[in-house]
Protein backbone atom coordinates (compact mmCIF):
# COMPACT_ATOMS: atom_id res chain seq x y z
CA UNK A 1 0.00 0.00 0.00
CA UNK A 2 1.65 3.24 -1.06
CA UNK A 3 2.54 5.38 1.87
CA UNK A 4 0.28 8.47 1.74
CA UNK A 5 3.31 10.52 2.55
CA UNK A 6 5.32 9.36 -0.43
CA UNK A 7 2.29 9.82 -2.67
CA UNK A 8 2.23 13.39 -1.48
CA UNK A 9 5.90 13.76 -2.36
CA UNK A 10 5.35 12.23 -5.79
CA UNK A 11 2.76 14.80 -6.67
CA UNK A 12 5.10 17.47 -5.50
CA UNK A 13 7.85 16.06 -7.65
CA UNK A 14 5.77 16.21 -10.81
CA UNK A 15 4.69 19.72 -10.01
CA UNK A 16 8.25 20.74 -9.37
CA UNK A 17 9.31 19.25 -12.66
CA UNK A 18 6.67 21.20 -14.59
CA UNK A 19 7.72 24.30 -12.74
CA UNK A 20 11.31 23.84 -13.85
CA UNK A 21 10.26 22.96 -17.37
CA UNK A 22 8.22 26.13 -17.57
CA UNK A 23 11.17 28.19 -16.45
CA UNK A 24 13.38 26.42 -18.96
CA UNK A 25 10.87 27.07 -21.71
CA UNK A 26 10.66 30.75 -20.83
CA UNK A 27 14.43 31.11 -20.84
CA UNK A 28 14.69 29.35 -24.18
CA UNK A 29 12.12 31.69 -25.69
CA UNK A 30 14.24 34.64 -24.63
CA UNK A 31 17.26 33.04 -26.27
CA UNK A 32 15.30 32.24 -29.43
CA UNK A 33 14.00 35.79 -29.65
CA UNK A 34 17.27 37.52 -28.98
CA UNK A 35 19.23 35.23 -31.30
CA UNK A 36 17.97 36.77 -34.56
CA UNK A 37 18.54 40.22 -33.11
CA UNK A 38 22.16 39.47 -32.35
CA UNK A 39 22.53 37.62 -35.64
CA UNK A 40 21.16 40.50 -37.66
CA UNK A 41 23.43 43.05 -36.04
CA UNK A 42 26.39 40.73 -36.31
CA UNK A 43 25.81 40.11 -40.00
CA UNK A 44 25.22 43.81 -40.63
CA UNK A 45 28.57 44.60 -39.15
CA UNK A 46 30.50 41.68 -40.56
CA UNK A 47 29.12 41.86 -44.06
CA UNK A 48 28.66 45.58 -44.23
CA UNK A 49 31.68 47.15 -42.67
CA UNK A 50 34.08 45.91 -45.28
CA UNK A 51 32.15 47.57 -48.06
CA UNK A 52 31.76 50.97 -46.51
CA UNK A 53 34.48 53.07 -47.99
CA UNK A 54 34.82 56.53 -49.40
CA UNK A 55 33.67 55.54 -52.87
CA UNK A 56 30.59 53.87 -51.42
CA UNK A 57 29.63 57.03 -49.64
CA UNK A 58 30.38 59.43 -52.45
CA UNK A 59 29.60 57.70 -55.72
CA UNK A 60 26.43 56.84 -57.52
CA UNK A 61 25.65 53.30 -58.64
CA UNK A 62 27.49 51.82 -61.58
CA UNK A 63 25.56 49.94 -64.29
CA UNK A 64 24.66 46.38 -63.28
CA UNK A 65 27.54 44.00 -63.60
CA UNK A 66 30.21 46.63 -63.21
CA UNK A 67 32.00 46.59 -59.91
CA UNK A 68 32.28 49.63 -57.69
CA UNK A 69 30.04 52.58 -57.35
CA UNK A 70 28.16 53.55 -54.25
CA UNK A 71 24.96 54.75 -52.69
CA UNK A 72 25.73 58.41 -52.24
CA UNK A 73 22.68 59.50 -54.18
CA UNK A 74 20.48 57.15 -52.19
CA UNK A 75 21.72 58.62 -48.91
CA UNK A 76 21.15 62.12 -50.24
CA UNK A 77 17.77 61.14 -51.60
CA UNK A 78 16.70 59.75 -48.26
CA UNK A 79 17.72 62.99 -46.61
CA UNK A 80 15.69 64.96 -49.14
CA UNK A 81 12.61 62.78 -48.84
CA UNK A 82 12.76 62.64 -45.05
CA UNK A 83 13.21 66.41 -45.00
CA UNK A 84 10.05 66.87 -47.04
CA UNK A 85 8.20 64.37 -44.88
CA UNK A 86 9.24 66.17 -41.69
CA UNK A 87 8.35 69.58 -43.08
CA UNK A 88 4.88 68.33 -43.94
CA UNK A 89 4.26 65.95 -41.09
CA UNK A 90 5.80 67.50 -37.98
CA UNK A 91 3.88 70.82 -37.89
CA UNK A 92 0.57 69.12 -38.69
CA UNK A 93 1.18 66.41 -36.12
CA UNK A 94 2.17 68.84 -33.38
CA UNK A 95 -0.72 71.13 -34.28
CA UNK A 96 -3.20 68.30 -34.09
CA UNK A 97 -1.66 67.22 -30.79
CA UNK A 98 -2.03 70.75 -29.42
CA UNK A 99 -5.65 70.74 -30.52
CA UNK A 100 -6.38 67.46 -28.77
CA UNK A 101 -4.70 68.53 -25.55
CA UNK A 102 -5.85 72.14 -25.25
CA UNK A 103 -9.16 72.26 -27.09
CA UNK A 104 -10.11 68.68 -27.72
CA UNK A 105 -12.03 67.38 -24.75
CA UNK A 106 -15.09 66.91 -26.92
CA UNK A 107 -16.64 64.62 -29.53
CA UNK A 108 -14.66 66.08 -32.37
CA UNK A 109 -11.45 65.56 -30.43
CA UNK A 110 -12.42 61.96 -29.74
CA UNK A 111 -12.99 61.33 -33.42
CA UNK A 112 -9.57 62.77 -34.24
CA UNK A 113 -8.01 60.48 -31.67
CA UNK A 114 -9.84 57.49 -33.05
CA UNK A 115 -8.93 58.26 -36.66
CA UNK A 116 -5.34 58.82 -35.61
CA UNK A 117 -5.18 55.36 -34.10
CA UNK A 118 -6.79 53.87 -37.19
CA UNK A 119 -4.23 55.57 -39.44
CA UNK A 120 -1.45 54.08 -37.38
CA UNK A 121 -2.55 50.60 -38.36
CA UNK A 122 -2.84 51.17 -42.10
CA UNK A 123 -0.23 49.09 -43.99
CA UNK A 124 2.46 51.33 -45.40
CA UNK A 125 2.02 49.95 -48.89
CA UNK A 126 -1.59 51.12 -48.93
CA UNK A 127 -0.42 54.60 -47.99
CA UNK A 128 1.96 54.38 -50.93
CA UNK A 129 -0.98 53.67 -53.21
CA UNK A 130 -2.85 56.69 -51.93
CA UNK A 131 0.17 58.95 -52.28
CA UNK A 132 0.58 57.63 -55.80
CA UNK A 133 -3.00 58.55 -56.61
CA UNK A 134 -2.83 61.95 -54.97
CA UNK A 135 0.59 63.17 -56.05
CA UNK A 136 2.21 61.01 -58.73
CA UNK A 137 -0.83 60.91 -60.97
CA UNK A 138 -1.18 64.67 -60.73
CA UNK A 139 2.45 65.45 -61.30
CA UNK A 140 2.68 62.77 -63.97
CA UNK A 141 6.03 61.83 -62.44
CA UNK A 142 7.32 59.74 -59.63
CA UNK A 143 8.81 62.25 -57.23
CA UNK A 144 10.51 63.02 -53.97
CA UNK A 145 7.46 65.08 -53.07
CA UNK A 146 5.20 62.05 -53.41
CA UNK A 147 7.56 59.97 -51.29
CA UNK A 148 7.74 62.71 -48.69
CA UNK A 149 3.97 62.99 -48.63
CA UNK A 150 3.56 59.26 -48.08
CA UNK A 151 6.03 59.29 -45.19
CA UNK A 152 4.44 62.42 -43.74
CA UNK A 153 1.09 60.64 -43.63
CA UNK A 154 2.78 57.89 -41.65
CA UNK A 155 4.41 60.31 -39.22
CA UNK A 156 1.35 62.37 -38.38
CA UNK A 157 -0.63 59.90 -36.22
CA UNK A 158 2.37 59.05 -34.02
CA UNK A 159 3.37 62.68 -33.54
CA UNK A 160 -0.22 63.70 -32.82
CA UNK A 161 -0.72 61.17 -30.06
CA UNK A 162 2.64 61.63 -28.36
CA UNK A 163 2.34 65.42 -28.50
CA UNK A 164 -1.08 65.24 -26.89
CA UNK A 165 0.22 62.94 -24.20
CA UNK A 166 3.18 65.18 -23.41
CA UNK A 167 1.11 68.35 -23.32
CA UNK A 168 -1.41 66.78 -20.98
CA UNK A 169 1.43 66.12 -18.56
CA UNK A 170 2.08 69.83 -18.20
CA UNK A 171 0.38 70.85 -14.95
CA UNK A 172 -2.69 73.06 -15.24
CA UNK A 173 -1.12 75.33 -12.64
CA UNK A 174 1.36 76.60 -15.21
CA UNK A 175 -1.41 77.56 -17.59
CA UNK A 176 -3.17 79.34 -14.74
CA UNK A 177 -0.02 81.23 -13.84
CA UNK A 178 0.27 82.46 -17.41
CA UNK A 179 -3.40 83.44 -17.70
CA UNK A 180 -3.07 85.23 -14.37
CA UNK A 181 -0.32 87.35 -15.89
CA UNK A 182 -2.61 88.34 -18.71
CA UNK A 183 -0.86 86.20 -21.30
CA UNK A 184 -3.25 85.40 -24.17
CA UNK A 185 -4.13 81.77 -24.81
CA UNK A 186 -2.11 81.31 -27.97
CA UNK A 187 1.01 82.62 -26.30
CA UNK A 188 0.42 80.51 -23.22
CA UNK A 189 0.01 77.36 -25.31
CA UNK A 190 3.16 77.95 -27.33
CA UNK A 191 5.54 79.64 -24.91
CA UNK A 192 4.55 77.91 -21.71
CA UNK A 193 2.80 74.61 -22.39
CA UNK A 194 4.64 73.50 -25.51
CA UNK A 195 7.88 74.90 -24.16
CA UNK A 196 7.58 72.88 -20.96
CA UNK A 197 6.80 69.69 -22.84
CA UNK A 198 9.49 70.27 -25.47
CA UNK A 199 11.74 67.32 -24.72
CA UNK A 200 8.83 64.88 -24.66
CA UNK A 201 7.37 66.25 -27.87
CA UNK A 202 10.72 66.02 -29.60
CA UNK A 203 11.11 62.44 -28.44
CA UNK A 204 7.77 61.67 -30.05
CA UNK A 205 8.86 63.33 -33.27
CA UNK A 206 12.10 61.36 -33.32
CA UNK A 207 10.18 58.14 -32.74
CA UNK A 208 8.04 58.86 -35.78
CA UNK A 209 11.10 59.89 -37.75
CA UNK A 210 13.05 56.77 -36.92
CA UNK A 211 10.10 54.63 -37.91
CA UNK A 212 9.66 56.15 -41.37
CA UNK A 213 13.38 56.52 -42.08
CA UNK A 214 13.61 52.79 -42.76
CA UNK A 215 10.37 52.46 -44.70
CA UNK A 216 10.59 51.08 -48.21
CA UNK A 217 7.08 50.07 -49.29
CA UNK A 218 5.55 53.53 -49.51
CA UNK A 219 8.45 54.72 -51.63
CA UNK A 220 8.20 51.95 -54.21
CA UNK A 221 5.80 53.84 -56.41
CA UNK A 222 6.17 57.34 -55.14
CA UNK A 223 9.85 58.20 -55.07
CA UNK A 224 10.50 55.14 -57.21
CA UNK A 225 14.29 55.34 -57.06
CA UNK A 226 16.93 56.79 -59.31
CA UNK A 227 20.42 55.71 -60.41
CA UNK A 228 21.57 59.31 -60.45
CA UNK A 229 21.56 62.37 -58.29
CA UNK A 230 18.32 64.24 -57.99
CA UNK A 231 17.44 67.31 -55.99
CA UNK A 232 14.25 68.27 -57.77
CA UNK A 233 10.98 67.77 -56.00
CA UNK A 234 9.12 66.47 -58.99
CA UNK A 235 11.46 63.80 -60.26
CA UNK A 236 12.06 60.22 -59.17
CA UNK A 237 14.54 60.11 -56.34
CA UNK A 238 16.76 57.42 -54.88
CA UNK A 239 16.35 56.42 -51.27
CA UNK A 240 18.54 54.23 -49.10
CA UNK A 241 15.92 51.57 -48.19
CA UNK A 242 14.82 51.38 -51.84
CA UNK A 243 18.38 50.88 -52.99
CA UNK A 244 18.97 48.17 -50.44
CA UNK A 245 15.87 46.36 -51.65
CA UNK A 246 16.78 46.63 -55.32
CA UNK A 247 20.33 45.43 -54.71
CA UNK A 248 19.30 42.61 -52.38
CA UNK A 249 16.99 40.99 -54.88
CA UNK A 250 19.40 41.47 -57.78
CA UNK A 251 21.57 38.61 -59.09
CA UNK A 252 24.87 40.45 -58.65
CA UNK A 253 27.24 39.60 -55.82
CA UNK A 254 28.76 43.05 -55.80
CA UNK A 255 25.33 44.57 -55.34
CA UNK A 256 24.65 42.14 -52.52
CA UNK A 257 27.76 43.39 -50.74
CA UNK A 258 26.62 46.96 -51.21
CA UNK A 259 23.17 46.08 -49.92
CA UNK A 260 24.72 45.01 -46.61
CA UNK A 261 26.79 48.16 -46.51
CA UNK A 262 23.74 50.25 -47.24
CA UNK A 263 21.80 48.50 -44.50
CA UNK A 264 24.55 49.19 -41.99
CA UNK A 265 24.69 52.84 -43.05
CA UNK A 266 20.90 53.09 -42.70
CA UNK A 267 20.92 51.79 -39.14
CA UNK A 268 23.85 54.00 -38.19
CA UNK A 269 22.19 57.09 -39.63
CA UNK A 270 18.91 56.41 -37.82
CA UNK A 271 20.62 55.83 -34.49
CA UNK A 272 22.87 58.87 -34.99
CA UNK A 273 19.93 61.12 -35.84
CA UNK A 274 17.99 60.07 -32.76
CA UNK A 275 21.03 60.40 -30.50
CA UNK A 276 21.94 63.80 -31.89
CA UNK A 277 18.49 65.19 -31.23
CA UNK A 278 18.40 63.70 -27.73
CA UNK A 279 21.72 65.40 -26.96
CA UNK A 280 20.62 68.73 -28.38
CA UNK A 281 17.48 68.66 -26.26
CA UNK A 282 19.36 67.87 -23.10
CA UNK A 283 21.89 70.62 -23.76
CA UNK A 284 19.12 73.14 -24.11
CA UNK A 285 17.64 72.63 -20.67
CA UNK A 286 18.77 74.59 -17.62
CA UNK A 287 20.38 73.37 -14.46
CA UNK A 288 17.62 72.16 -12.22
CA UNK A 289 14.93 72.35 -14.86
CA UNK A 290 12.57 69.41 -15.38
Amino acid at each position, binding site marked *: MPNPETKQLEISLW*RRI*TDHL*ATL*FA*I*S*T*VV*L*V*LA*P*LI*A*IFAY*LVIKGVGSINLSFLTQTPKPPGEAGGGMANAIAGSVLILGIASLLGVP*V*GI*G*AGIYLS*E*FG*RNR*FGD*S*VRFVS*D*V*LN*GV*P*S*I*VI*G*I*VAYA*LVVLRQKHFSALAGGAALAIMM*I*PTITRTTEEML*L*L*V*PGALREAAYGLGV*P*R*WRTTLSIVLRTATSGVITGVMLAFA*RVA*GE*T*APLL*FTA*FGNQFWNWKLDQPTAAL*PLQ*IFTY*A*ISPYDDWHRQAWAG*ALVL*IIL*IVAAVAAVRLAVRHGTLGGAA
Partner: protein
Amino acid sequence: MTGPQRVAGAGEKTGSRVSPLAGSADGVLRDRLFSYVILACALTVLIILFLIVYELLSSSQLAWKAFGWHFFWTHDWDPVNDQFGALPFIYGTLVSSLLALLLAVPLAVGVAVFTTEMSPKWLRGPISFLTELLAAIPSVIYGLWAIFVLVPILRTVVQPFLAKTLGWTGLFEGPPYGIGMLAAGIILAVMIVPIISSITREVLVVVPQQQREAALALGATRWEMIRIAVLRNARAGIVGGIILGLGRALGETMAVTMVIGNRPEIAKSLFAPGYTMASVLANEFSEATGDLYLSALVEIGLALFIVTIIVNAMARFLVWSVTRGQPARGHA
Protein backbone atom coordinates in the same frame (compact mmCIF):
# COMPACT_ATOMS: atom_id res chain seq x y z
CA MET B 1 -23.89 93.71 -18.35
CA THR B 2 -25.24 96.83 -19.99
CA GLY B 3 -23.41 100.07 -20.15
CA PRO B 4 -21.61 102.24 -22.61
CA GLN B 5 -19.39 100.10 -24.77
CA ARG B 6 -16.00 101.59 -24.45
CA VAL B 7 -12.94 99.48 -24.92
CA ALA B 8 -10.34 100.09 -22.31
CA GLY B 9 -6.71 99.43 -23.11
CA ALA B 10 -4.10 98.09 -20.85
CA GLY B 11 -2.85 101.59 -20.30
CA GLU B 12 -6.10 102.89 -18.90
CA LYS B 13 -5.11 104.23 -15.59
CA THR B 14 -7.05 102.48 -12.94
CA GLY B 15 -4.93 104.30 -10.42
CA SER B 16 -1.89 106.45 -10.43
CA ARG B 17 0.55 103.77 -11.51
CA VAL B 18 1.43 103.35 -15.18
CA SER B 19 2.17 99.77 -16.08
CA PRO B 20 5.10 98.93 -18.35
CA LEU B 21 2.54 97.06 -20.44
CA ALA B 22 0.55 100.20 -21.13
CA GLY B 23 -0.70 100.13 -24.67
CA SER B 24 0.01 96.47 -25.31
CA ALA B 25 -2.37 94.56 -27.58
CA ASP B 26 -4.70 92.01 -26.07
CA GLY B 27 -4.07 89.34 -28.69
CA VAL B 28 -7.69 88.48 -29.39
CA LEU B 29 -7.11 88.34 -33.12
CA ARG B 30 -4.05 86.16 -32.73
CA ASP B 31 -5.97 83.89 -30.39
CA ARG B 32 -8.57 83.36 -33.05
CA LEU B 33 -6.01 82.82 -35.79
CA PHE B 34 -4.17 80.35 -33.60
CA SER B 35 -7.24 78.30 -32.86
CA TYR B 36 -8.10 78.17 -36.56
CA VAL B 37 -4.64 76.95 -37.50
CA ILE B 38 -4.70 74.31 -34.78
CA LEU B 39 -8.16 73.21 -35.79
CA ALA B 40 -6.99 72.90 -39.38
CA CYS B 41 -4.22 70.58 -38.26
CA ALA B 42 -6.69 68.38 -36.42
CA LEU B 43 -9.00 68.38 -39.42
CA THR B 44 -6.10 67.32 -41.61
CA VAL B 45 -5.95 64.03 -39.72
CA LEU B 46 -9.58 63.35 -40.57
CA ILE B 47 -9.10 64.51 -44.14
CA ILE B 48 -6.19 62.10 -44.60
CA LEU B 49 -8.32 59.12 -43.67
CA PHE B 50 -11.09 60.38 -45.89
CA LEU B 51 -8.70 60.71 -48.80
CA ILE B 52 -7.36 57.21 -48.27
CA VAL B 53 -10.83 55.70 -48.28
CA TYR B 54 -11.93 57.83 -51.22
CA GLU B 55 -8.94 56.99 -53.39
CA LEU B 56 -9.09 53.29 -52.66
CA LEU B 57 -12.80 53.12 -53.39
CA SER B 58 -12.77 55.20 -56.53
CA SER B 59 -9.70 53.63 -58.12
CA SER B 60 -10.97 50.11 -57.52
CA GLN B 61 -14.34 50.77 -59.09
CA LEU B 62 -13.26 49.47 -62.48
CA ALA B 63 -12.20 46.10 -61.15
CA TRP B 64 -15.21 45.87 -58.89
CA LYS B 65 -17.57 46.45 -61.77
CA ALA B 66 -15.71 43.91 -63.86
CA PHE B 67 -15.45 41.06 -61.36
CA GLY B 68 -17.67 41.76 -58.39
CA TRP B 69 -17.29 39.39 -55.43
CA HIS B 70 -15.76 36.72 -57.67
CA PHE B 71 -12.59 38.72 -57.48
CA PHE B 72 -11.95 37.30 -54.04
CA TRP B 73 -12.35 33.66 -54.78
CA THR B 74 -11.02 33.20 -58.27
CA HIS B 75 -7.42 32.19 -58.43
CA ASP B 76 -6.55 33.19 -61.95
CA TRP B 77 -4.09 36.06 -61.97
CA ASP B 78 -3.42 36.72 -65.62
CA PRO B 79 -2.58 40.34 -66.44
CA VAL B 80 -1.93 39.51 -70.08
CA ASN B 81 -5.51 38.42 -70.62
CA ASP B 82 -7.01 40.90 -68.18
CA GLN B 83 -8.12 38.14 -65.85
CA PHE B 84 -7.73 38.99 -62.19
CA GLY B 85 -8.54 36.78 -59.26
CA ALA B 86 -7.16 37.57 -55.85
CA LEU B 87 -7.52 34.23 -54.10
CA PRO B 88 -3.82 33.26 -54.25
CA PHE B 89 -2.87 36.47 -52.53
CA ILE B 90 -5.52 36.15 -49.86
CA TYR B 91 -4.42 32.59 -49.27
CA GLY B 92 -0.78 33.62 -49.11
CA THR B 93 -1.46 36.46 -46.71
CA LEU B 94 -3.53 34.29 -44.40
CA VAL B 95 -1.18 31.31 -44.37
CA SER B 96 2.00 33.34 -43.87
CA SER B 97 0.37 35.39 -41.10
CA LEU B 98 -1.09 32.39 -39.32
CA LEU B 99 2.20 30.53 -39.54
CA ALA B 100 3.92 33.60 -38.12
CA LEU B 101 1.43 33.70 -35.24
CA LEU B 102 1.92 30.02 -34.51
CA LEU B 103 5.63 30.58 -34.13
CA ALA B 104 5.54 34.01 -32.55
CA VAL B 105 2.90 33.61 -29.84
CA PRO B 106 4.70 31.04 -27.68
CA LEU B 107 7.94 32.96 -28.06
CA ALA B 108 6.43 36.34 -27.29
CA VAL B 109 4.37 35.16 -24.35
CA GLY B 110 7.38 33.26 -23.06
CA VAL B 111 9.57 36.34 -23.16
CA ALA B 112 6.87 38.45 -21.52
CA VAL B 113 6.27 35.92 -18.75
CA PHE B 114 9.99 35.61 -18.19
CA THR B 115 10.57 39.33 -17.89
CA THR B 116 7.59 40.05 -15.67
CA GLU B 117 7.45 36.95 -13.47
CA MET B 118 10.71 35.08 -13.52
CA SER B 119 13.62 37.25 -14.40
CA PRO B 120 15.89 38.86 -11.82
CA LYS B 121 15.24 42.57 -11.63
CA TRP B 122 18.47 43.67 -13.23
CA LEU B 123 17.80 41.58 -16.32
CA ARG B 124 14.35 42.99 -17.02
CA GLY B 125 15.44 46.31 -18.44
CA PRO B 126 18.02 44.95 -20.87
CA ILE B 127 15.73 42.20 -22.19
CA SER B 128 12.85 44.61 -22.70
CA PHE B 129 15.16 47.07 -24.38
CA LEU B 130 16.55 44.45 -26.72
CA THR B 131 13.08 43.18 -27.60
CA GLU B 132 12.05 46.75 -28.42
CA LEU B 133 15.15 47.04 -30.56
CA LEU B 134 13.81 44.19 -32.68
CA ALA B 135 10.81 46.38 -33.41
CA ALA B 136 13.00 49.20 -34.62
CA ILE B 137 14.76 47.26 -37.36
CA PRO B 138 13.43 48.28 -40.77
CA SER B 139 11.56 45.64 -42.73
CA VAL B 140 13.95 45.75 -45.67
CA ILE B 141 16.84 44.85 -43.40
CA TYR B 142 14.91 41.87 -42.07
CA GLY B 143 14.38 40.88 -45.68
CA LEU B 144 18.04 41.30 -46.48
CA TRP B 145 19.06 39.09 -43.61
CA ALA B 146 16.36 36.58 -44.45
CA ILE B 147 17.54 36.22 -48.05
CA PHE B 148 21.19 35.70 -47.25
CA VAL B 149 21.12 34.03 -43.87
CA LEU B 150 17.75 32.50 -43.10
CA VAL B 151 16.98 31.08 -46.53
CA PRO B 152 20.30 29.20 -46.94
CA ILE B 153 19.81 27.69 -43.48
CA LEU B 154 16.33 26.60 -44.44
CA ARG B 155 17.48 25.20 -47.74
CA THR B 156 20.43 23.24 -46.42
CA VAL B 157 19.42 22.20 -42.93
CA VAL B 158 15.88 22.86 -41.82
CA GLN B 159 13.83 21.92 -44.83
CA PRO B 160 15.52 18.57 -45.52
CA PHE B 161 15.08 17.78 -41.83
CA LEU B 162 11.40 18.70 -41.88
CA ALA B 163 10.85 16.79 -45.09
CA LYS B 164 12.38 13.69 -43.56
CA THR B 165 10.54 13.81 -40.26
CA LEU B 166 7.23 15.50 -41.00
CA GLY B 167 6.98 15.02 -44.75
CA TRP B 168 4.05 12.67 -44.33
CA THR B 169 1.81 15.58 -43.33
CA GLY B 170 2.00 17.00 -46.82
CA LEU B 171 3.12 20.31 -45.43
CA PHE B 172 6.77 19.77 -46.07
CA GLU B 173 7.16 18.34 -49.48
CA GLY B 174 8.56 19.54 -52.73
CA PRO B 175 12.00 20.83 -53.58
CA PRO B 176 13.63 22.69 -50.70
CA TYR B 177 14.18 26.05 -52.37
CA GLY B 178 14.55 27.78 -49.05
CA ILE B 179 12.51 30.60 -50.45
CA GLY B 180 8.80 30.16 -49.92
CA MET B 181 5.97 30.22 -47.43
CA LEU B 182 8.00 28.78 -44.59
CA ALA B 183 10.70 31.45 -44.88
CA ALA B 184 8.05 34.16 -45.02
CA GLY B 185 6.30 32.78 -41.96
CA ILE B 186 9.51 32.59 -39.98
CA ILE B 187 10.74 36.09 -40.72
CA LEU B 188 7.26 37.47 -40.08
CA ALA B 189 7.26 35.69 -36.74
CA VAL B 190 10.51 37.39 -35.73
CA MET B 191 9.04 40.73 -36.73
CA ILE B 192 5.81 40.45 -34.78
CA VAL B 193 7.25 39.01 -31.57
CA PRO B 194 8.09 42.48 -30.17
CA ILE B 195 4.56 43.83 -30.43
CA ILE B 196 2.89 40.75 -28.98
CA SER B 197 5.49 40.62 -26.26
CA SER B 198 5.16 44.25 -25.22
CA ILE B 199 1.36 44.16 -25.07
CA THR B 200 1.50 40.93 -23.11
CA ARG B 201 3.95 42.46 -20.71
CA GLU B 202 1.65 45.45 -20.27
CA VAL B 203 -1.33 43.31 -19.37
CA LEU B 204 0.66 40.98 -17.13
CA VAL B 205 2.01 43.86 -15.11
CA VAL B 206 -1.50 45.16 -14.49
CA VAL B 207 -2.60 41.96 -12.76
CA PRO B 208 -2.84 42.85 -9.04
CA GLN B 209 -0.14 41.48 -6.82
CA GLN B 210 -2.75 40.04 -4.45
CA GLN B 211 -3.78 37.54 -7.09
CA ARG B 212 -0.27 36.19 -7.26
CA GLU B 213 0.07 36.09 -3.52
CA ALA B 214 -3.25 34.30 -3.10
CA ALA B 215 -2.11 31.52 -5.40
CA LEU B 216 1.27 31.20 -3.72
CA ALA B 217 -0.34 31.14 -0.30
CA LEU B 218 -2.36 28.13 -1.40
CA GLY B 219 0.87 26.29 -2.09
CA ALA B 220 1.14 26.75 -5.84
CA THR B 221 4.51 26.49 -7.55
CA ARG B 222 5.65 29.54 -9.44
CA TRP B 223 4.54 28.16 -12.78
CA GLU B 224 1.15 27.19 -11.34
CA MET B 225 0.80 30.67 -9.89
CA ILE B 226 1.58 32.20 -13.26
CA ARG B 227 -0.82 29.90 -15.02
CA ILE B 228 -3.69 30.30 -12.59
CA ALA B 229 -3.40 33.83 -11.27
CA VAL B 230 -1.64 35.81 -13.95
CA LEU B 231 -2.19 34.39 -17.41
CA ARG B 232 -5.81 33.59 -16.78
CA ASN B 233 -6.53 37.13 -15.64
CA ALA B 234 -4.69 38.69 -18.52
CA ARG B 235 -6.18 36.38 -21.11
CA ALA B 236 -8.23 38.96 -22.95
CA GLY B 237 -5.35 41.35 -23.19
CA ILE B 238 -2.97 38.68 -24.45
CA VAL B 239 -5.44 37.72 -27.12
CA GLY B 240 -5.65 41.38 -28.00
CA GLY B 241 -1.88 41.53 -28.33
CA ILE B 242 -1.94 38.46 -30.54
CA ILE B 243 -4.56 39.99 -32.79
CA LEU B 244 -2.52 43.18 -32.97
CA GLY B 245 0.43 41.06 -34.06
CA LEU B 246 -1.80 39.49 -36.68
CA GLY B 247 -2.71 42.95 -37.94
CA ARG B 248 0.95 43.80 -38.24
CA ALA B 249 1.70 40.55 -40.08
CA LEU B 250 -1.12 41.03 -42.56
CA GLY B 251 0.24 44.36 -43.73
CA GLU B 252 3.92 43.53 -43.69
CA THR B 253 5.41 43.99 -47.13
CA MET B 254 9.13 44.12 -47.72
CA ALA B 255 10.57 41.22 -45.79
CA VAL B 256 7.84 38.91 -47.03
CA THR B 257 8.24 40.03 -50.64
CA MET B 258 11.91 39.27 -50.50
CA VAL B 259 11.54 35.64 -49.43
CA ILE B 260 8.17 34.33 -50.37
CA GLY B 261 8.93 33.54 -53.98
CA ASN B 262 6.26 35.71 -55.53
CA ARG B 263 4.35 33.04 -57.38
CA PRO B 264 0.55 33.38 -57.42
CA GLU B 265 -0.21 29.77 -56.63
CA ILE B 266 -2.05 27.97 -53.90
CA ALA B 267 -0.13 24.99 -52.58
CA LYS B 268 -0.43 22.86 -49.51
CA SER B 269 3.27 22.53 -48.84
CA LEU B 270 5.01 25.24 -46.87
CA PHE B 271 8.07 24.75 -49.01
CA ALA B 272 6.24 26.12 -52.02
CA PRO B 273 6.55 29.73 -53.09
CA GLY B 274 3.52 31.92 -52.55
CA TYR B 275 2.35 35.50 -52.89
CA THR B 276 0.70 37.88 -50.46
CA MET B 277 -1.59 40.84 -51.03
CA ALA B 278 1.07 43.28 -49.90
CA SER B 279 3.74 41.59 -52.04
CA VAL B 280 1.79 41.67 -55.28
CA LEU B 281 1.23 45.38 -54.71
CA ALA B 282 4.91 45.92 -54.05
CA ASN B 283 6.02 43.99 -57.11
CA GLU B 284 3.46 44.84 -59.74
CA PHE B 285 1.96 48.22 -58.94
CA SER B 286 4.55 50.37 -60.59
CA GLU B 287 4.57 48.19 -63.69
CA ALA B 288 0.85 47.75 -64.08
CA THR B 289 -0.16 48.46 -67.63
CA GLY B 290 -3.78 49.03 -68.31
CA ASP B 291 -6.48 50.51 -66.18
CA LEU B 292 -8.08 47.22 -65.23
CA TYR B 293 -4.78 45.84 -64.00
CA LEU B 294 -4.18 48.89 -61.85
CA SER B 295 -7.73 48.87 -60.60
CA ALA B 296 -7.48 45.22 -59.63
CA LEU B 297 -4.36 45.96 -57.65
CA VAL B 298 -6.02 48.88 -55.91
CA GLU B 299 -8.92 46.63 -55.06
CA ILE B 300 -6.46 44.28 -53.37
CA GLY B 301 -5.13 47.30 -51.49
CA LEU B 302 -8.67 48.18 -50.45
CA ALA B 303 -9.29 44.68 -49.17
CA LEU B 304 -6.02 44.76 -47.24
CA PHE B 305 -6.97 48.13 -45.79
CA ILE B 306 -10.37 46.97 -44.60
CA VAL B 307 -9.09 43.73 -43.12
CA THR B 308 -6.26 45.39 -41.18
CA ILE B 309 -8.57 48.07 -39.82
CA ILE B 310 -11.05 45.52 -38.55
CA VAL B 311 -8.34 43.34 -37.04
CA ASN B 312 -6.63 46.30 -35.35
CA ALA B 313 -9.92 47.60 -33.99
CA MET B 314 -10.71 44.22 -32.44
CA ALA B 315 -7.25 44.04 -30.95
CA ARG B 316 -7.34 47.49 -29.44
CA PHE B 317 -10.73 46.87 -27.94
CA LEU B 318 -9.50 43.71 -26.25
CA VAL B 319 -6.37 45.35 -24.89
CA TRP B 320 -8.35 48.35 -23.72
CA SER B 321 -10.83 46.20 -21.87
CA VAL B 322 -8.04 44.74 -19.76
CA THR B 323 -5.87 47.76 -19.11
CA ARG B 324 -8.76 50.21 -19.34
CA GLY B 325 -6.79 52.01 -22.04
CA GLN B 326 -5.17 55.35 -21.34
CA PRO B 327 -6.73 56.77 -18.20
CA ALA B 328 -8.70 59.86 -19.11
CA ARG B 329 -6.32 62.54 -18.04
CA GLY B 330 -7.21 66.16 -17.59
CA HIS B 331 -4.44 68.67 -16.95
CA ALA B 332 -2.39 67.34 -14.07
